[in-house]
């Protein structure tokens, strides 16, 4: 197990390096530069800017210098579009915001999603099942960019209960709508996966054995069916969690939360190379990390799995 973990971590390093080189190359191949504007800069100004940010050097040199600065100083460089801040500062400011609403949305979608899914499976073909399926299908077809304006319309404009946006250090009135808007579709997916997996598990031989031994149904569900039924859910959770905590462009745009999600779009449009790289590497590392975590969780949940 330890050996396996170490091996996975060792593989992660070249993976991230490849990610860096590829993203760097893709980014530089996009037309235009950070300094392309409607009014072209005089050549001397452009030269000054390129020299200032090292863009006048060769591609391999740029990549090498970039990676070296990260390794030695953990410095992700200056941002080209936010002149007053470094990429480290931008991520340090935005990531906690995203982590907060992302984690809450994650918890909410797991609790509500598995709850709905299990209830639907256990009370299959009853009104409860129809309700749960109805809710999850409804939530699925309401993507966050539809949910967000609807929520604001209802809770801010009509009812006047919640502020329409902002973050204010994460005070709870500012958290509710972003979390709900972000969580609904994930909750729906989790509910659907849980329901079908639970139905399958409840029909499997070992459950029938347990039931025929006369164990109470509730106990069978909780003690025997729960763990195997949640296995597919867990494989879905790894990437979902990374997706949630690395932010949502939509949430940041609608609720002005100041998270890092918006930078994926804006930095790319502005050709803010260091900022694109910064957020890409962050996502890359988190993805690798959580995939590993999920694999380890598997072993704990399903004793048949061995690495």
């Amino acid at each position, binding site marked *: 197990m330890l050996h396996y973990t170490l091996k996975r971590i060792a593989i992660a390093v070249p993976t991230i390096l490849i990610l860096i080189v590829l993203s760097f190359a893709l980014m530089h191949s*996009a*037309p*235009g*530069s950070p*300094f*392309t*504007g*409607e*009014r*072209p*800069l*005089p050549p*001397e*100004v452009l030269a*000054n*800017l390129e*020299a*200032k940010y090292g863009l006048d050097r060769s591609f391999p040199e740029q990549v090498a210098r970039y990676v070296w600065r990260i390794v030695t100083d953990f410095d992700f460089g*200056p941002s080209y*579009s*936010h*002149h*007053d*801040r*470094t990429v480290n500062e*931008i991520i340090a*400011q*935005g990531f906690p915001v995203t982590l907060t609403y992302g984690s809450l949305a994650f918890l909410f979608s797991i609790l509500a999603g598995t709850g709905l899914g299990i209830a639907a499976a256990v009370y299959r073909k009853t009104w409860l099942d129809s309700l749960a399926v109805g809710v999850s299908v409804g939530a699925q077809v309401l993507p966050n960019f539809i949910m*967000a*304006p609807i929520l*604001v*319309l209802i809770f*801010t*404009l009509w009812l*006047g*209960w*919640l*502020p*329409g*946006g*902002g*973050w*204010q*250090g994460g*005070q709870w*009135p*500012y958290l509710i709508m972003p979390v709900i808007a972000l969580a609904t579709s994930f909750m729906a997916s989790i509910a659907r996966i849980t329901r079908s997996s639970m139905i399958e598990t409840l029909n499997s031989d070992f459950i029938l054995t347990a039931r025929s031994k006369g164990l109470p149904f509730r106990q069978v569900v909780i003690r025997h069916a729960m763990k195997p039924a949640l296995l597919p859910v867990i494989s879905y959770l790894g990437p979902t969690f990374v997706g949630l905590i690395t932010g949502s462009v939509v949430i*940041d*745009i*609608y609720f*002005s*939360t*100041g*998270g890092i999600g*918006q930078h994926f*779009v*804006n930095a790319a*449009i*502005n*050709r803010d190379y260091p900022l694109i790289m910064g957020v890409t590497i962050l996502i890359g590392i988190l993805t690798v990390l959580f995939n590993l975590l999920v694999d380890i969780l598997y072993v704990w949940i399903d004793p048949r799995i061995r690495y």
Partner: protein
Amino acid sequence: MQTPSPDHCENPNSTLHPFDFQFISGEFRLRNHLIALAAAAGLGIGAMAQADTPSHHPLTGEELSETQTFTYRMLDEAPTLDPQLNQDSEGFDILRDLFEGLMNQDPNGELVPGVAERFASSNGNRTFTFHLRDNAKWSNGDPVTTRDFVYAWRRAVDPAVGSPYAWYVELAGVMNASAIQAGDMPPEALGVKALDPHTLQVDLDRPVPYFAEMTTYATFFPTHRPTIEAHGIAWTRPGNLVSNGAYVLAEHVPNEYHARTRNPHYWDNESTIVERVTGLVVNDEHQALTRYFADEVDRTGIPAGQFPNLKEQYPDQTHSMPALCTYYYTINHTETGHPALRDRRVRSALSYAFDRDIIVSSLLKGGQAPAYNFTHPATAGFDPTVPDYARMTQAERDEAARELFAAAGYGPENPLQLSLIYNTSESHKKIATVASQMWKQKLGVDIKLSNFEWKTYLVRRKNQEFDLSRAGWCGDYNEASTFLDVMTSSSGANDGKFMDARVDELMEQSRTLDDPTPNYREVEAILASEMAMIPIYHYTSVFMLKPDIRGWPFGNVQNNWYSKDLYRVKSAR
């Protein structure tokens, strides 16, 4: 300014979005528990109503509200609060409050004293001398002197600083600006001298009659050297930032909000009324409008097409004012463009057949004016001659277009195929679609529409990889040359490469004239007869403003508002 950020349709330069976004404002009203609680804790509302707010406006006598706050919506986070690095219109909104340059604009856009009490020009508009007031102070109490201006202006062109707006100093004609940027001269060689702590002399390398107007822009604002030297790039953070304007930066959470409060050291602090100004970043314009109606912001832009309805429902809150920008289609005059476009008749036919009224009255619906000139008609001191084709009816224009087109050898039998590029945006797409329909029906032209993401589109434009291209131009300063210079051969923004020796000559000549208007008129006449490009409409800025916010500079066509001129009246909302 590079790109139109006006409230309508456009994407501002450095802050571009794939979505249709825009601009805001607002005040947190104590309307319900949660908002009140959160606002009081987060935005410090408790501290807003200060005892020294007068009960009535000293000039108008209107009864003032006890809460002197102004909250507006920003489309995006300002890329910087460093005046010399700024190139963004929303950044400029903040900087106008935090800093003060030599001159300011009044609510009608007229020049009024700022840090300078007066100025004089000599040597045929090649030398400007500014006399600074002796009571101007930085927010830490230091006096504002000519040295602060000299320091700031040198920073703006210093290659080591690498300002993306260094060209503005060059545009203003300050002596040696180009050589310094090129590294051929030290920044100290810049043509700005502190004759004494209160007399600033500026030497220009050519006559620039409107130089004083140009000092209202952020690039020419003074900066506080000890602060910059002490904090490096972090000098613009709240707590570090020392500024000389009516306000100081109180709070700043990037991508969420800025808050600025009164600067007690400001020389005219007594006349300032609004205590606290907050800019909330709300990317989505529809969301921003909802928050305007929820009383969270006092000002926001109006999404395209919604102006007429809102105007009907809220006539006193819905505003449309001219914005110094023109929307047009650039024609590629070079070898890479369709050869037919080098025929004046073809260019004219395309322009004549383009029904601008449909665009402004059915598509945009925000009070925009159909354009037949390049220069925005609201530009100060400019009364353009309306070209002949502007006076025809559309039917007459269509007829003339068909004749011109046939004379050039094109028509339904010999159809012309052209490409039209635009940057990705709903409203550009609509206009381009309508244009292609009009040209197809009237002239049988097949238009291939292509949209590109902003930077890709810019690169294609710079490289003349188009036949026709959507374009917008906004005045950098309120004078016709800011538009007309674009069409000169040497202009870097002349992406269609229209070359006309007479235009170049007239513009060059205009710089030394006391009254350049005849030259400008002649240039416009050439642009119209040669149909150098296809003007489409002149921009307006459409926005919602709460009725109790007064002092809005409706007469300032550059939409340069100063919070120190605003106030909130007591009203039964």
